[in-house]
Every structure is written in structure tokens, then in C-alpha cells.
């Protein structure tokens, strides 16, 4: 243990605590002063109506929409007709293909690139679609995903390359991408129908809007991060700019691009359910139908089918490109789906299960290698290049052979052609039973009632009243000041402009509801997420249990758990908060665990040598040092909580999201867009604000 490390620990600790007290005292003083202002100025907070009346945003947008309906519709229709061609073709192909062919087409690459465990995961996932009787719906969603993701990736990489070459283009693109990612889809779903038609083509375009930003961002980032030495080396060999890009930079940036692609896939699946609002069909329609009939089990089946699709794509895309997924905090630290825990290796029962699978697996690999080698050797005289290329790929040949056989005989064999009814097994009833049982269980309902009243009486209602009761100019000034202290003056002024826009658009009070709801949700996320994250950092079992649950929470469409949340917590604002917490808590837990685990193990030793207990070490040393990571979790939770504004109006949520949803119901594009922009602005503001805190925290720790 060197002295250098020791001093780092001490310095970090000291600096952290010093700055923290100052911030704490100042915040408390600010809060006290605000309470004083609230006491004096109670209920006088009305933004001048004259300003609202003279701000013609909504009318302008609605006029613009009318103009566009008359003048650009033929262009947009041509685009959607072009998209319709590959979509309908692929959907038809997937519907017609023998189901075993589709199964193998997913499983074989999974086996080849991800090994036995990924292969088995793919088997379970794909069979699940047939098992719950949603095979054709899954195929529709699969084709929708394939087409929209392909378009996103091609277009995204192109734009990403462009933006990596020009600072100005990047600066121009950034706010647009921010907006695309945070604008609630309800704002553009209904106009999309008029311009792009109903059904899958419209859905594809909506998905592209929502899901393309990560590819663009990470392509640009990856290219920019290519080491300068490598670029210089290529230059000294006399590469042209184009050669440099295609031969050096793009291949180097591949890991980063793949992460972008992966995030795009996830986001695309996230929109699969909302696409039902424009007749998108597929699994999303199943979830929606189930929701409108309050069939929770049915909705879960559809939701889990989507989760499986997401997990298979996620793992497979990483496995195929050979990019380790460990770097991304968001999805990357998910479970690897080990067949059985490695600890159980000594257990005879576990061995008995794994052994035969292992034998078949090895036999399969041996045969594959043998056939491939034989084939490669025999064609060597004809085409040595092809032979060399093929030889190290034992799976390719045997896999293609199997697929070809299934393709040929599949239509003739009944159980191979369409998923046999006899193999269907619905899990609706046990889920429905469990939900029903909980709904009427007095103890459980007493607990939920307590949570509900606590959140409403002590958090949400006071905060709502407090924010609304403060004069509008005071809230604006205070927020601007907080942003100034946390980031810089330029962004503080931008924030002020944002806030004035919200007020002038007549959205001041509902924006405050949104801020209050977000604050309460994030507070609960921290209160539950950080302790859970700490436990998971110390206990491997907790971690192993939590991981798949968190994975599911992030990929399960929120629609699936809205109805149970309503059953348990009733129709009120608190239910919307609960749903928001479910959606946005995973990053808090994950990044807390990650932050603690990433600390050098020596810290424990040093701290113990000073005689600290484990708890003391945790609270006095490790948590402060992990705080930047926890702050990043907070930042992600804030952004995700605001994203849930798009969903919570369906369960009595208040705020800007409700305004968007209402505007959609009355077909008032201008109103919806104004409120949508409100959500975007609040997201940008709170995102930058919490990022500022993270940065300050890192600086305070000397990182």
C-alpha cells in the first residue's frame, strides 16, 4: 500500500465533505428564503395573460400544418410508399417461412457467436412467441424492427460520419437529436398518419425519428476518438481523406458504432407499443388490446415477448461484432445468461443437467468442423481464397445446410411449418390469479394505501402547492441562479429563455407540476435505488437476483405494468409517480453498484488500518468516492422520468405530458407541440443541471 494512494483517499474525502457542507448550508438558506417568499406571496403567481395572448405559437403551428397538408403531402406519401415495399415484403416472407426456419435463423448465429448459453436463450425467446400464441404478431414486429433499424443504421452512420467531419454540422445536429430523443411520440404520431398513412410505414418513420440519435452520436464520437497516432501513421503512408475514413477510422470506430446500433434497437423496441396509435400492429397491438380489456396476464405475455426480442437482439448484436458490452452502463452490465451459476459446477445435479447438453454441443461442433474442413479441402484447388475464408468458420457451412434443409422440407412437415397448437402454453392465468389475489389482499392494499398517502400528503402535494404558490418571476430567477451556479452563465441565460417560452405558451403551471412530479419520482428512485445498489455491491446473490429484474424493467413496455399499478394504487397522481419510479430506477441502482465496485480494493484495507468499521468505510470513504457515478445515475433517472411523461397521462399523471395527450385527443397539433417542446426544454435543462453536479462532484474529488 503506497502513500500516494492513501493521500488520494484522504484528499478526496476532505474536499468532498468541505464543498458538500457549503452547498448544503446554502441550499438550506435558499429553501428557507423561498418558504418565506411563499408565505408572503401565497397564490399570486399568475403569468401576465396579455403576454400569453400575444404569443401566437399554437396558431402559427396549426396554420403551418394546414399548409403542409395541402402542399407537401405528395412528397411524404411517396416516401412512405417506398418504405412500404420492403416492409410488406419482409412481413410476408416472415409469415410464410416455416417457423422452425425462423427459429434456427435466430438460434444458429447465436450459437456460433455467443456460444451455447446465448443459443439456448434464443431458443427460449423465439419459442416463447409461439408458446403464448403470438407467433405472427412477433413476425410483424420483427419485420417492423428489421426495416426501421436498418434504415436508422444506414442513415445514422452516414449522418454520423458527416458530423464527425464538421464541427458546424455537429453543433447544428446536436439540438435536433436532443429534441428527437425527448419529444413525446404522441406529438407527431397523429400528424404522421396524415402525411405518411396508417400502419407500419408510418410506424417505421416514427421509430426512425425516435431511435436514430444514438447511432449518429456514437458514430461521430467513435470516429473522433480514433487515436491521433493511428491517423498520423496512415497519413505517412499517403492515404487520402476518403481512404483514411473508410479503411482506418470507420473500422476503428466499430465498437462505438455498435453500441449506437444496440441502443437504437432498444429504443426502437421501446416504441413498438406506442405504434399501435397509428395502426402499427404486431406485438404492440396485443399489449394494447390486453390493456383496454384490463387483461394483465395477456399484456404481460405480449410484454415478455418484446423483452425476449430485445434481449436476443442486444446480446446477439454484441456477440456478432465481438464488442464487449461491459463498457456501457445502461445495458452492458446486464446478465450474460449463464445456463447455471458457475458456483454450482460441483453440484452433481447441475452437472447431470449440463453434461448431456455439453456432449451434444461438442458433438455438433466436432461434426461441423469436420464437414467444413472436408469441404474446404475439396474446393481448395478450385478456389483457394474461398476455401481459406471458409475453413475457420465451421458454423457457417453446417448452419446454412441446416437452414436450406429446413427451408425445403419445412412446408411439408406440419410441426415445422407453423407453430403447433399443442405446444402452446399460456401463462395468462397464473399472472391474472396473482394480480387478482394482490388486488383484494387487505394487508397488501393497506401497504399500498400507506405508500400512496405518504407520497401524496408529504411529498407531491406540498411540492405542487409550494411551486405553484411562489411568484412566477421568483421561480424563474431561482432556477436560473441554480443553473448558473451548477453550470455556466451562458446556459443559465438559455434556461431563462426556456422558462419564458413555457410561461408565454401558457404552460407555466403545468410545467411546475411536471417539475414537481419529476423531482418526487427521482427522490424516491434515490431513496430506494441507492440502498439497493449498495446491497448489490456487497452481496453477489442480491446482484444476481436484481440484474434480470432490472433488465426486464428497462425493456418491458410501461403499458404492461400500468394496469397492475392502477389496481394496487388506484387512479390518482401517485400511481403515475409509481410507474415513473419503476421505469427510471434501474440506472440509479446499477450506477451505485458500479461506482462502489469500481473503487480500488485497497481502499478497504487503508480504511480498516485506520480502524474504521465496514459501515464507516462505506459512508465516510466509499460512498463519497462513488458519488460521481451515483450522480450519473441521478442524471439518467431525471431524463427517464421526463420521458415517462409521454406515458403517465394514461394513468392520471399531471403535467406537460397530459397536455400533449389531450392535444392529441382533440387533434390540436400546435398545443401538443408547445407542450412537447416544454418537455424537451425541461429535459435539456435538468439534464445539463445534473450533469453539472456530476462534473462539480468529480472536480471536488480531484478526478
Amino acid at each position: 500500500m503506497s502513500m500516494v494512494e492513501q493521500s488520494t483517499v484522504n484528499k478526496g474525502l476532505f474536499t468532498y465533505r468541505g464543498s458538500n457542507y457549503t452547498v448544503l448550508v446554502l441550499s438550506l438558506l435558499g429553501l428557507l428564503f423561498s418558504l418565506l417568499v411563499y408565505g408572503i406571496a401565497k397564490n399570486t403567481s399568475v403569468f401576465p395573460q396579455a403576454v400569453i395572448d400575444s404569443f401566437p405559437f399554437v396558431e402559427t403551428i396549426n396554420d403551418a400544418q394546414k399548409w403542409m397538408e395541402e402542399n407537401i403531402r405528395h412528397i411524404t406519401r411517396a416516401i412512405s410508399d417506398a418504405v412500404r415495399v420492403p416492409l410488406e415484403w419482409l412481413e410476408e416472407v416472415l409469415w410464410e417461412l416455416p417457423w422452425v426456419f425462423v427459429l434456427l435463423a435466430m438460434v444458429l448465429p447465436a450459437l456460433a457467436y455467443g456460444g451455447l448459453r446465448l443459443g439456448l436463450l434464443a431458443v427460449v425467446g423465439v419459442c416463447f412467441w409461439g408458446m403464448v400464441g403470438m407467433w405472427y404478431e412477433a413476425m410483424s414486429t420483427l419485420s417492423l424492427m428489421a426495416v426501421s433499424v436498418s434504415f436508422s443504421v444506414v442513415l445514422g452512420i452516414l449522418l454520423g460520419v458527416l458530423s464527425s467531419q464538421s464541427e458546424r454540422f455537429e453543433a447544428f445536429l446536436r439540438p435536433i437529436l436532443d429534441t428527437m430523443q425527448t419529444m413525446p411520440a404522441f406529438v407527431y404520431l397523429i400528424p404522421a398518419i396524415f402525411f405518411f398513412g396508417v400502419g407500419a410505414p408510418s410506424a417505421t418513420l416514427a421509430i426512425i425519428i425516435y431511435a436514430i440519435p444514438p447511432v449518429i452520436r456514437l458514430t461521430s464520437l467513435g470516429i473522433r476518438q480514433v487515436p491521433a497516432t493511428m491517423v498520423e501513421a496512415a497519413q505517412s503512408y499517403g492515404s487520402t481523406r476518403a481512404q483514411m475514413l473508410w479503411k482506418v477510422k470507420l473500422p476503428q470506430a466499430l465498437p462505438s458504432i455498435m453500441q449506437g446500433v444496440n441502443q437504437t434497437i432498444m429504443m426502437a423496441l421501446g416504441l413498438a407499443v406506442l405504434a399501435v396509435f397509428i395502426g402499427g400492429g404486431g406485438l404492440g397491438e396485443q399489449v394494447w388490446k390486453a390493456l383496454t380489456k384490463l387483461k394483465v396476464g395477456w399484456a404481460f405475455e405480449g410484454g415478455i415477448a418484446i423483452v425476449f426480442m430485445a434481449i436476443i437482439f442486444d446480446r446477439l448484436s454484441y456477440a456478432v461484432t465481438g464488442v464487449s458490452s461491459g463498457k456501457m452502463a445502461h445495458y452492458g452490465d446486464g446478465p450474460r445468461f449463464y445456463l447455471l451459476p458457475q458456483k454450482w459446477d460441483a453440484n452433481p445435479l447441475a452437472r447431470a443437467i449440463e453434461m448431456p447438453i455439453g456432449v451434444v454441443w461438442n458433438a455438433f461442433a466436432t461434426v461441423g468442423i469436420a464437414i467444413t474442413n472436408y469441404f474446404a479441402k475439396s474446393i481448395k484447388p478450385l478456389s483457394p481464397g474461398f476455401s481459406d475464408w471458409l475453413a475457420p468458420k465451421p458454423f457457417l457451412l453446417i448452419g446454412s445446410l441446416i437452414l436450406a434443409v429446413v427451408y425445403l422440407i419445412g412446408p411439408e412437415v406440419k410441426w415445422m411449418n407453423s407453430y403447433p397448437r399443442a405446444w402452446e402454453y399460456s401463462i395468462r392465468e397464473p399472472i391474472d390469479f396473482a394480480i387478482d389475489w394482490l388486488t383484494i389482499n387487505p394487508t397488501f392494499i393497506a401497504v399500498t394505501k400507506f405508500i400512496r398517502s405518504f407520497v401524496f400528503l408529504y411529498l407531491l402535494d406540498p411540492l405542487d402547492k409550494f411551486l405553484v404558490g411562489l411568484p412566477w418571476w421568483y421561480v424563474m430567477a431561482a432556477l436560473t441562479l441554480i443553473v448558473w451556479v451548477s453550470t455556466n452563465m451562458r446556459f443559465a441565460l438559455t434556461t431563462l429563455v426556456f422558462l419564458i417560452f413555457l410561461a408565454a405558451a401558457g404552460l407555466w403551471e403545468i410545467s411546475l407540476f411536471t417539475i414537481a412530479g419529476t423531482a418526487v419520482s427521482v427522490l424516491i428512485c434515490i431513496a430506494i435505488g441507492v440502498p439497493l445498489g449498495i446491497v448489490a455491491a456487497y452481496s453477489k446473490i442480491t446482484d444476481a437476483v436484481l440484474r434480470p429484474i432490472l433488465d426486464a424493467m428497462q425493456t418491458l413496455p410501461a403499458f404492461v405494468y400500468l394496469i397492475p399499478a392502477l389496481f394496487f394504487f388506484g387512479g390518482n397522481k401517485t400511481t403515475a409517480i409509481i410507474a415513473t419510479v419503476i421505469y427510471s430506477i434501474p440506472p440509479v441502482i446499477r450506477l451505485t453498484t458500479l461506482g462502489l465496485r469500481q473503487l480500488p480494493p485497497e481502499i478497504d484495507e487503508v480504511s480498516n488500518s485506520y480502524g474504521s468499521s465496514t459501515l464507516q468505510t462505506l459512508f465516510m470513504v466509499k460512498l463519497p468516492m462513488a458519488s460521481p457515478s451515483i450522480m450519473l445515475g441521478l442524471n439518467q433517472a431525471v431524463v427517464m422520468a421526463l420521458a415517462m411523461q409521454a406515458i403517465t397521462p394514461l394513468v392520471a399523471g399531471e403535467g406537460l405530458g397530459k397536455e400533449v395527450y389531450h392535444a392529441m385527443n382533440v387533434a390540436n397539433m400546435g398545443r401538443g407541440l408547445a407542450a412537447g417542446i416544454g418537455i424537451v426544454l425541461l429535459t435539456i435543462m435538468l439534464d445539463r443541471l445534473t450533469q453539472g453536479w456530476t462534473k462539480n462532484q468529480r472536480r471536488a474529488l480531484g478526478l
Partner: protein
Amino acid sequence: MKSNKTIATLAGLGAISISFAATPAQAGGVLKSAVNDWTGGAVMCEIVHQIAEREMGFKVKRITMPSGPGRDEAIRAGDLDYGCELWPSYSTTIQKYVTEYGGDGSMLKVSDSGVVGVSSYYVPKYMVEGSDAKAPDLKSWKDMNKYASLFKTLETGEKGRLLGCPTAAWQCEDNKRMELLGLNYTAVELGSEAAHWAEMQAAYKRGEPFIAYAWEPHWIHAALDLVKVELPEHSEEKWPATGWATDVTFNYANPKFAEDHPEMIELIKNFRLTNEMQAPMIHAIDVDGKEMEEVVDAWLADNESTWKAWLPATN
């Protein structure tokens, strides 16, 4: 050189396929139908679909989407040809698009569907009947104040909570009604129909008191035993201090489609399904858990003389 050729080929293929896609459907061909996402409305559509498929050689494309402006946009734009059972009270678009309601005619009202909708406030039967009924005299709006305290919640304070229309877009004006009728209640909106029914169902299962807006025919009445609370009779002048007008629901279509396929319009015009005819089918689907296609199929088998009379004369 090679890649240029590939691109040219691809572009050519694309152009061919687009022209295929843009070819109009041949006569008698395709009906793109907006399927309602509630059971009664879906049954309504399905009967027309099956007749069109079996008797008139139509290929029917069923597209489920929530009713509302999105669906109406699709019918107006011609992406969908036909929609069934539209409820005028709750539409925010007919005043813009349907001639009979002062619109521009971009949506065509074809005929009344036969289903007449009734909206009101309802309470569970266990509150008004039986020995342990908590509100035995709650029969009309006049009795509501007497029992207001039964319905109070955290959010509504001393006032009773009325589960009003789920969204303000339906223009139910529940809170205005409470105010005008002098009722000590606050109406809350839960945002979506699903949330509205979920709240009612959960409260019903727990035997809790609730008073909620609902309408008939609807599957909720097949699932829960609800009793109507009488409201003052509807009047345009006094609205919203009155109950709702009865909703004469109608079927509607894209005007261009109507021109191209008069035979289909004739079928839709003749087609009529009353509340009483719809109710047992809703029950079979939502309570007995049967498949909708199966139920409609059985109905068609049992009522051949009824629907045969709907077929267009030219068929």
C-alpha cells in the same frame, strides 16, 4: 462501375415495386377497415368484414387502432376505407369533417349503426341493494349529496370523488355539472379508458364505494353489476346541468371509397345491429372468453335470414 450497376438495378426494382403498390385495388377488391378497440365496436365491424369476405369477394384488411382523431385522419386520407360505430357525443372531429355536423365532408356518414348509446353515472349494485348496502337511497342525482362523504378521498378532501370522463377531450364537463347541480363532488379524470375501468374493477373487487361515469352498451356491465344514477333529462340549453343525449352511433367511410364501391356502401347502409343483438356477443367474448371470430361466425350461422337481407341488390 459494378456498384453503380447494382444501385441502378436496385433503384429499378424499387420503382417497379412502388408502381405495384400504387396500383388501385381492382373492383370488388380490398376493404381497409378501422377496427374498434372495444368489444362491442369490434363485433360490429367483424360482422361486416365476414359478410364482405364470404358473400362479396372482398379481401378485408383489419387495422386495430384506438378511436379518435388519428383514426379519423386515416379515413379522411383514404388509408382506411371504413369505420364503424362512431359515437357523436365523444368525437372531437365530426364537426370538422362530417357534413351532417357542419364539417367539410371529408368523412362520409353512411348510416346509423343501430346501436344507441346511453351515458350516465353509475354505482355498484352492492351499494344500493342488500342488507349491508351503504347508500340504499341513492337513486338519482338528488340523493348524491347525502352520500358524498362515502366517496371522499385524499385528493378530494371533504368532497366526494366522482370518476368522471377519462379525458377532457370528450367534453363531458363533469365538474361544471357538479357545480351547476350544487353537488358536493369533485370529478377526476384518469386519463385513459383503460385506467377508468381498471379503477372501477379494482374498487368493485374490494367492495369499496365508488361513483363513476360509464355508458351502455359496454363490456364493463358484463363484468360488474352496476346501477344507474338518474340525471336530469338532457337539454341543449341547460347542458351541462343535465344528463347526456342518447348517442345515435353511425358507420362512416371515406367519400372516394364510397364512390368506387357503391355495393359496399349499400351493404353498410342496410346493416343494422341493435344493443340487444350486440349484448349477448359482448358477453360471450368478455365474460365467457370466446374468440371474437368464433362468436361472430356463430351469430352469422344463426341469423342467416337477417343478414342475407342486407346484401346489396346488385350482388
